């Protein structure tokens, strides 16, 4: 039987995992040993597509087009894209309609970008396992709506994968935690990722994981922390250097966001750090000291926004915070000490953090894949639909048919009739959301049900709304008079049609037949060149920090790497890259320490931001 793997398709990073002898483990890149694949795709000017770390490095060079955090745009329309995203992404300008990118005269959709990340994971797994991978489980934020889920499934298809199941990230995480050992109890999963926040409450009983409620915000995550700090850094640079132009420079923003992310990571361990920004057209970097205290004041309000969904989830589950037996932390952003403190205070107990929060979702996806392949029958996940589903009724009001937190799969049948004589069809407008009015909810689909012309109120059309185990809706209608049954295709308003997916698939197969090795070689070269650039810069900045021997060793390793880049031996380049990386590590650390000391008594973040 073919192997089924689990994929965590994250906003910031993506991972792939498998179950071996009953235990899940993530699959690392066979060359670099890296487990996390940055969810970044770079479209180079020459048509090459790079994914992951090499795409990030290409971004830093400022050529081509780089798309990061595309998950934020999956399955939504232009009217839901905020101002920040409009500057961050190379969007085709429009007030409404589907989100599209313009890349070298070609229109690319978010699922296509996501598919590049999935393909890279597929290649990685195939290289390690030595067999073709075609069946996967992919995780999605629990709070993803129907169109976001369909877009994720489309991305899988475009990558040549059969997506057997979409699993909610927090529930997947609970599977990975092996909490089935807990005979019974209530657990809360707090999942703060790069771009999304989910909270789920589950009851555990003899291996059954029953989700009681889920809530969240698909537009809230660690990215927002990074943007806040990036803005402060740029504002500081604009003011201190009298360079207001950096505030509108997309490249400067990209660098500032990268640095903000790195500073966040450093501040999770250290109480202060120096943020550095390379300013175009300026010698040396702009630097500013950020203390953890200052940082926490900056992000506190964003972090606190996660608590309202927690309260709602508890309320929906009918559970008090002190009835929660375990709190599980998921997502890289839960490493931020402030976030841990907020969660500890809110639930009144120490959250579980013993599984790497970056890996736990992928591990859970692998467990679910194992369940689907018949590997384990001990565990069963009973998940819920996160948002109510309904239809438009008279007066622009949404009438709920399936309520949020209903266990899936679920099916509800409603009978419809006509409001006037000789009507030939009934219009059905499917909505998802919790608000009263149609206009405040997400429009999922509209379709027409054909009916035989009859006097008003005579036709009897039974419509069944079915939400499957992936949380995806399908609709069937039966004309009770004629017995005719038709399946209604629920096309998400911003999704791709089947024809579009087919066409894209064909195009991508053409592309896949191009030499894959050439592509891998290109990626490896990019990584090597970035390291060479960084090394040169470090040697210039801290000449007094290296002695003769060390300098000679670094230069020897750099020369060796330069020679391998000219050749076509990918493994040789990889080895030489790693060798250079090793000898420059101590220098990098010394440089970092020095800049912290230099700025300790210098200007601080507050002054800059004032």
């Amino acid at each position, binding site marked *: 039987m073919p192997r089924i793997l689990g994929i965590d398709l994250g906003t910031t990073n993506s991972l792939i995992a498998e179950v071996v002898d009953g235990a899940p483990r993530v699959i690392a890149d066979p060359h670099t040993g890296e487990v996390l694949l940055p969810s970044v795709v770079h479209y180079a000017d020459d048509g090459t597509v790079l994914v992951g770390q090499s795409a990030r490095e290409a971004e830093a060079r400022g050529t081509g087009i780089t798309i990061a955090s595309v998950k934020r745009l999956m399955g939504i329309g232009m009217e839901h894209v905020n101002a920040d995203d409009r500057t961050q992404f190379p969007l085709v300008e429009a007030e409404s309609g589907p989100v599209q990118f313009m890349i070298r005269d070609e229109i690319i959709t978010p699922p296509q970008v996501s598919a590049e990340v999935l393909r890279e994971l597929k290649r990685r797994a195939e290289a390690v396992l030595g067999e073709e991978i075609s069946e996967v489980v992919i995780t999605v934020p629990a709070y993803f709506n129907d169109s976001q889920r369909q877009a994720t499934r489309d991305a899988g298809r475009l990558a040549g994968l059969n997506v057997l199941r979409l699993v909610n990230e927090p529930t997947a995480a609970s599977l990975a935690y092996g909490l089935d050992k807990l005979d019974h109890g209530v657990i809360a999963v707090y999942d703060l990722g790069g771009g999304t926040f989910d909270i789920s409450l589950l009851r555990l009983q003899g291996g059954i994981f029953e989700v009681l409620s889920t809530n969240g915000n698909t537009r809230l995550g660690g990215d927002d922390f990074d943007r806040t700090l990036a803005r402060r850094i740029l504002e500081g640079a604009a003011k201190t250097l009298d360079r207001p132009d950096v505030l509108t420079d997309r490249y400067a923003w990209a660098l500032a966001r990268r640095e903000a992310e790195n500073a966040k990571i450093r501040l999770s361990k250290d109480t202060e750090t120096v943020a550095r920004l390379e300013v175009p057209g300026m010698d040396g970097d702009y630097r500013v000291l950020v203390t953890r205290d200052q940082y926490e004041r900056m992000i506190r309000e964003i972090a606190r926004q996660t608590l309202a969904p927690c309260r709602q989830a508890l309320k929906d589950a009918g559970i008090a915070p002190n009835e929660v037996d375990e709190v599980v932390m998921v997502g890289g952003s839960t490493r931020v000490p402030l976030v841990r403190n907020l969660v500890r205070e809110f639930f009144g107990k120490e959250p579980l953090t013993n599984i790497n929060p970056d890996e736990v979702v992928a591990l859970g996806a692998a467990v679910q894949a194992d369940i689907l392949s018949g590997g384990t029958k001990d565990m069963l996940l*009973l998940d819920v639909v996160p948002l109510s589903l309904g239809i438009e009724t008279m007066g622009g009001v949404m009438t709920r048919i399936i309520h949020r937190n209903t266990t899936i*799969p*679920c099916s509800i049948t409603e009978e419809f009739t006509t409001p006037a004589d000789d009507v030939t069809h009934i219009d059905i407008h499917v909505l998802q959301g919790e608000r009263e009015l149609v206009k405040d909810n997400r429009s999922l689909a509209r379709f027409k049900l054909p009916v035989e012309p009859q006097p008003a109120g005579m036709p009897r059309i039974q419509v069944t709304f079915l939400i499957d185990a992936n949380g995806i809706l399908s609709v069937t209608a039966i004309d009770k008079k004629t017995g005719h049954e038709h399946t209604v295709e629920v096309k998400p308003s911003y999704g791709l049609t089947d024809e579009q997916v087919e066409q894209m698939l064909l195009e991508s197969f053409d592309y896949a037949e191009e030499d894959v090795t050439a592509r891998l070689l290109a990626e490896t070269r990019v990584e090597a060149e970035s390291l060479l650039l960084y090394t040169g810069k470090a040697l210039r900045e801290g000449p007094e920090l290296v002695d003769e021997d060390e300098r000679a060793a670094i230069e020897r390793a750099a020369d060796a790497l330069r020679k391998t880049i000219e050749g076509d031996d990918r493994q040789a380049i990889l080895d030489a890259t790693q060798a250079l990386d090793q000898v420059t590590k101590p220098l990098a650390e010394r440089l970092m320490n020095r800049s912290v000391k230099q700025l300790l008594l210098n200007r601080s973040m507050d002054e800059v931001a004032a």
Partner: protein
Amino acid sequence: MSDTLRGEIVHNPDSRDHFEVLGLPRRLVVDQDQLSRHYYRLSRTYHPDFHQKGTPAERIASLRRTAAVNDAHKTLRDPVARGRWWLESHGRKLGDSPQVPPELAMLVLEVQEVLENLRQSQDSALAEQVHARNDEIKDELNRRMEMLEDHFARWDALPEGASPEPLLDELAALLAEISYLKTLRRDVDRTLESVGA
């Protein structure tokens, strides 16, 4: 499923009767532990996760049956949903916007008045009053939830052949009151939230 095979208890996953779907005795007073036990066991039997590799027909059946089991569980677990379903399965429907039940008219009027005043004045003393009225509503609600359980017990004791009509009237009235109190509570919560009290 030993306890489902005795007497008249049947398990029929394709039935429209929630008791039959879960293989539970046809009694409105539900033993929650038994309900959970049956629910989990049937989920383990029918859930699509365990039929992923089956034929298309098997997968469709698994999906349909799991949906039915989930629906039955959701309905029977919650006394109000259970009562509503029972009413509907006897051909009665609870109106979407019921009249103010006479017994609650006074309370409703008073609460609406104090809410309106609070919305206009944002006075913290009024907020205190609203909190007090909210407790009163909660008490009324709890009392009716207890009455609902007693009411269910009377259905279970209804002799064979007796007319269910009087009980149906009583159930409809009780559910209308509960629905009204819940709406009132939601209004109170929303108002308190909007004035930040």
